[in-house]
């Protein structure tokens, strides 16, 4: 493992117990993600993309194997430690936006920094600057339901990045968006990746998204079935 590795996963296995029946969602994956990558995990539905991302993000514990994130072994961290680790090191973008409906755009973006105890002036500055970058500064005072899906997902991107995590994880971020909006969102995310050097890892089975990824990892039946670089995709 080097300093440049954001994620190192070794022999990750995740087996669910579906009322007594074992479901082998991830069947042994070794994987390394380096700093500044903009990588898509692709694969058919049910191939284990969400499960694998959840294990990498510390939302779920692997049945077997080890996961290091920013050099920390997270696969055997306790609940509270893991929770604080997620807060400080991982930004999440969900398929269904999942903004807090009672908080304004600004407050949604501010939320994680509040948990981190960032002082108010700094919070305010960082919120404004990130909203500027994702292009929705003018909607700062609105509630999520007053925004379109694409706009909400931009807020989600802002919320994921504002706490300056080591990694932004996005599970099918465009699944609820039309192709034009999806393309625009991905262009924006890639621009942010290039400008800030932030590492992105997302799952998708959307052509539009794949074309914009710099690296692609193919998962089939819970195993890595191939890798490709952006040049190979073109």
């Amino acid at each position, binding site marked *: 493992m080097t300093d440049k590795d954001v994620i190192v996963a070794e022999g990750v296995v995740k087996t669910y117990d579906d009322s007594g029946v074992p479901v082998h969602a991830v069947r042994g994956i070794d994987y390394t993600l380096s700093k500044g990558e903009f990588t898509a995990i692709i694969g058919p539905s049910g191939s284990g993309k*969400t499960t694998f991302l959840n294990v990498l993000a510390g939302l779920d514990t692997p049945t077997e194997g080890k996961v290091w994130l920013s050099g920390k072994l997270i696969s055997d961290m306790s609940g509270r430690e893991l*929770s*604080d680790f*997620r807060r400080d090191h991982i930004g999440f973008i969900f*398929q269904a936006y*999942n903004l*807090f*409906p009672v908080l304004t755009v600004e407050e949604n973006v501010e939320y*994680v920094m509040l948990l981190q105890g960032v002082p108010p002036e700094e919070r305010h500055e960082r919120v404004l600057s990130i909203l500027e970058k994702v292009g929705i500064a003018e909607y700062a005072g609105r509630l999520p339901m007053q925004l379109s899906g694409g706009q909400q997902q931009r807020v989600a991107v802002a919320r994921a990045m504002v706490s300056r995590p080591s990694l932004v994880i996005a599970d*099918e971020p465009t699944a609820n968006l039309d192709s034009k909006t999806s393309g625009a969102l991905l262009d924006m995310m890639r621009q942010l990746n290039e400008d800030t050097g932030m590492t992105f890892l997302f799952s998708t089975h959307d052509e539009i998204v794949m074309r914009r990824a710099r690296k692609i990892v193919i998962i089939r039946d819970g195993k890595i079935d191939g890798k490709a670089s952006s040049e190979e995709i073109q």
Partner: protein
Amino acid sequence: MLLKLAWRNVFRQKRRTILTLLTMTGGFFLSSLSIGWMDGSYSSIIMFFTNNRTGQIQVHHEGYLEDPSIYSTVNDYQAVGAFLDSIPGVRSWAPRTYSGALLAVRPRGAGSGNVFSNSAAASVIGIDPVMEEAATDFSDRIVIGEMLSASAADSSYSATGQIILGKELSIILEASVGDSLVMLSQAADGSSADRMYVIRGIVSTGNTDIDRNTCYITLSDAQILFALEGKVHEIAVMTHSLGTVDRLTGEISTALSEKDLETDSWKTFAKEFYNGMKADEASLKVTIFVIVLVAAMGVLNTILMMVLERRREFGVMKALGTRPGFIIRMIVLEANIMGIISVIAGGILSTAGLLLLSSHGLVMDPPLSYGGTVFREMIASITPECYWIPAICVIITATTVSFLPALKAAHTKAAKTLRTV
């Protein structure tokens, strides 16, 4: 942030929140009114009962209450009375003698011979008309005729005395005001006591058991007839307010115990009545408990639905690294925001309700009966208990009822709830 989140969450499901607020406010209102009303009726029943006859405190010779013998007397009662007058908080006192006698009526126009018609055994209570007037509302309860005259012009043994009969006793004796009767008994010195009386009034105390077998003569008559010069059996003490009774009883008791006198409060000498009150207080507690329980179920239902509906949100909060304690505090705070709003609304409503009940009273139908005394109208009193007891119930309910759902929400599994497929 916590407060902002909780506050906005409370008002996102307006209809449900309003229903919950109504439940809690209703619970507050009902328990507040029950307390005020019961408090008010307790003190008015107790004051009515004790002012009517017994007083709030009584002084007797040691052991008189267990064994009311004619020989068991308070000697030199004037000295005891003077002491009582010196105690602040004592409104007045009334001396009494108790004895038994046989009454035989001599109908009007029966001539001078010993012609008697109906007779009955009765308790004879000797009362001081002036002191009694100051202490109790006995004279207000005379339904026919008049109170015994204070000057009792001639109380020599041979003269005819005045007597007041209980209403039911007068019916048994078929006697009315102006009729004469003879009283036969035994005096404290063992001599026989008999004397002629003219009926001066008929009294209805509201307690038919007493009115069936009691008659009243003046204290001086009684002292002469029963050879009790300067002595009485009981001193009934009236206080200004019920709240001071226990303290005053202790104070008087300490001062008088060396004279072989015993001082008791109404809780002791009217034990049956007191126990009835306590039983009622217990049923009030049950009533309030039921009200709180019903309100708690409503609130629990709301919180459970809310926690269920917002599972995904809790999942997101957990994913973003929110600690369980934050989520627990948020939900308990939400319940308590509703609680506090209900306490304020309930407080305002209850004040209005209590003011109405305390100025107009509630007509009892059927009338309430305590220790033979009948009450037809009850008035509420506004005490601090009307507010702080329901308020504490509401806040405790909100907190306990929201805690378990909050705990459940706080341990939402992010990976599970966020799955979309």
